[in-house]
């Protein structure tokens, strides 16, 4: 097994980073790398789901939002105004209402034990859902109105924990939601799963965007605290000129640490018995199922694991930019680009996912000024030819990148369906 291809590709990456340092600045490069490493983590998460498990997930964005919300909830300072008000009591009542609803729904679902037929069970279930929904709405609506109207900042605030806990909580949130989704959807066929995950991501977005009492919605939360001293902290402690680069470097080191740990754990798991079983399930559901493997449980496991990694990645992104803006999440920037990363990098190979994550993120970022440069020149050329300048050059240049992204997907699928660093497990991955 030679690794020449990997060396070359990562060499290219190193050269690219070197160019960035010279062209932009060390500070700018570190920023790009910090964000790129967050995306690499997210790509690892998708690689676990799609590459290892063959599970489709077009809802990456939703998990990133959950991660972002998790870190805000954990690390944002405590909102004294909320805790000193009636808010907790009102929310408590809503929680009790939700619990009551859950109980009657479960009771209805298990109603065959009380001798109800299939039809009446269905009916009981529908009634239970309706009652639960009404009871819950009757409690949550006033609580929401109260918190959004009476409490300072208009939301519950955070828990004031260290950002690292926030990253962990982001992973937990994403994983927990993934568990619920997995329970419901993983039995579905691939295309149904694809549409289901898109839908879930949109619902998560709608919820986070509109649950102002919990997330502050489009009002955005900032500043989200950093896990390492920020530039301001360092500047205050006397590091004048070097404060920015030191702060960013510390952040980058921390994220790299997270990635290295997770990467090593994943590699170990993947080349161990667990990974073998996962590949068996991915490549042949039926055979794996007949071998007595609990396919669905394993799939949920893998879906949750991948989502948790995405959640952590999403937390790191939010923490870095220090602002949580639910309106800023877009499927293109937060779902499809991650797909491009693993398609180009090579699904089923963690190194490929890492490479794809960092490489595509860098290319995506620097393509912004490059596209603008090209379009400005085009515009000047067309102006010089007497055809008039291109209007809104900047926004058009941005859209050109979306086109190129799509083109990259289709070209990669056609000419390099296994990615730049293909899966290498005892022979090639079966071509599709």
């Amino acid at each position, binding site marked *: 097994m030679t690794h020449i291809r990997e060396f070359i590709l990562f060499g290219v990456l190193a050269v690219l980073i070197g160019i960035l340092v010279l062209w932009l600045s060390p500070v700018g490069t570190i920023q790009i790398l910090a964000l790129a490493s967050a995306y690499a983590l997210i790509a690892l998460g998708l690689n676990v789901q799609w590459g290892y498990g063959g599970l*489709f997930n*077009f809802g990456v964005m939703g998990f990133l939002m959950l991660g972002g919300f998790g870190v805000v909830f954990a690390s944002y300072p405590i909102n004294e105004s909320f805790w000193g008000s009636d808010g907790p009591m009102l929310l408590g009542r809503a929680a009790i209402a939700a619990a009551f609803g859950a109980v009657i729904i479960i009771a209805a679902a298990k109603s065959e034990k009380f001798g109800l037929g299939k039809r009446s069970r269905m009916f009981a279930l529908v009634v239970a859902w309706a009652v639960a929904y009404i009871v819950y709405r009757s409690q949550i609506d006033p609580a929401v109105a109260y918190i959004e109207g009476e409490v300072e900042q208009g939301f519950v605030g955070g828990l004031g924990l260290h950002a690292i806990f926030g990253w962990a909580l982001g992973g937990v949130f994403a994983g927990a939601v993934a568990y619920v989704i997995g329970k*419901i*959807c993983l039995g*579905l066929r*691939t*295309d*149904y799963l*694809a*549409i*289901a995950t*898109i*839908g*879930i991501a*949109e*619902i998560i977005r*709608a*919820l986070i*965007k*509109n649950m102002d009492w919990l997330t502050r919605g489009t009002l955005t939360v900032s500043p989200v605290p950093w896990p390492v001293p920020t530039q301001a902290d360092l500047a205050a402690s006397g590091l004048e000129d070097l404060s920015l680069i030191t702060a960013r470097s510390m952040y980058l080191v921390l994220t790299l640490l997270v990635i290295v740990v997770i990467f090593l754990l994943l590699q170990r798991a993947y080349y161990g018995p667990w990974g073998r079983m996962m590949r068996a399930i991915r490549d042949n559901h039926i055979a794996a199922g007949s071998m007595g493997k609990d396919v669905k449980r394993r799939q949920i496991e893998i879906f949750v694991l991948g989502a948790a990694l995405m959640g952590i990645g999403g937390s790191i992104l939010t923490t870095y930019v220090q602002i949580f803006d639910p309106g800023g999440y877009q499927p*293109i920037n937060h779902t*499809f680009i991650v*797909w491009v990363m693993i*398609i180009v990098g090579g699904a089923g190979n963690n190194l490929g996912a890492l490479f794809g994550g960092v490489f595509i993120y860098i290319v995506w970022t620097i393509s912004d000024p490059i596209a603008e440069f090209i379009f400005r020149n085009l515009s000047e050329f067309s102006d010089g030819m007497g055809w008039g300048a291109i*209007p*809104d050059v900047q*926004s*058009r240049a941005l*859209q*050109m*990148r*979306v*086109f*190129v*992204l*799509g*083109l*990259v*997907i*289709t070209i990669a*699928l*056609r000419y390099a*369906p296994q990615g730049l660093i293909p899966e290498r497990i005892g022979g090639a991955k079966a071509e*599709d």
Partner: protein
Amino acid sequence: MNELIFFVNKVLVSGTVLGSIYALGAVGVTLIFGILRFAHFAHGDMMTMGAFVTFVLASIAASMGIQTFWPTGFIVLPFAMAIAAGLALGIDRAFYQPLRQRGAKPVTLLIASIGVTLMIQGLIRLFWGVEARSFFANEPKDLIRIEVPFEGVRPIVISEPQILLIVTTVIAVVALHLFLTRSRLGKGMRAMADNADLAKVSGINTRQVIRATWVIAGGLACMAGTMLALDVTLKPDLAFNIVLPIFAAAIVGGLGQAYGAIAGGFLIGFAETMAVFNWSILLRPFRQSWPDWLPFPADLSLVPTEYKLTVAFVILVVVLLVRPTGIFKGAST
């Protein structure tokens, strides 16, 4: 009585309009699935693309001074549909056919369709920017008021594009039905959706059927996108947001079932409008006789408007769990 009219305007008219658009989109999705066995995610953007084609043609027509009784966008629609069908064929040729010939799995085609989505989105915004446009910048959008035979009651209001939309949808559905049940190619299409291997064995020209599928899907997508743009405004992300309800409609109707997709489209359309409708309006006439001990509900909508999107999705999930093949039995592989 006014409340009832309000209900008709807000639920019946809006639901029919929304349902028609969903139905036209879902038919395309379901036909492509039936024939090519993959979920074509770029369908929403094919709708947007079609709307922009119509917009360009309408602009050309307007600059040539063509003014008719009908909205210009509607007059040029047949030409736009032909162009959109051609574009759909080109997209298939360039991006899906090579993968099919390699024998790629449906999921690979599905990912490719995401690539196509991004390309169409990028191109549309590259050429037209991100701002909203209107088909009615230079001509009036007529409103039709249907008076009801009661004193002091508001009329039922429906806009001209909405009537055109409903009528065109009916025509399109009837035409599609005739095509699928009467024509040789249409029957071949049903045969291929039913059993692709046997269709091939029977000597049915599967390439021809695939082309017909793209022509129909592309044309209907153009029609749906244009109608949506005529009803509201023309935006680059016009249809991307309705791709979810469209897929929900196609799946609810049973993937591969053209009639199911139409029924599913109206089901989802009405469900969405009814879910966000404030039902307490219907209670207003009883306000006088409302018991004092019960607070009069100000808002009885089932779902806040922000969560409209969730309605389609919840229906989808329930159908998938209760009856995975859809209400009409859909293709199983």
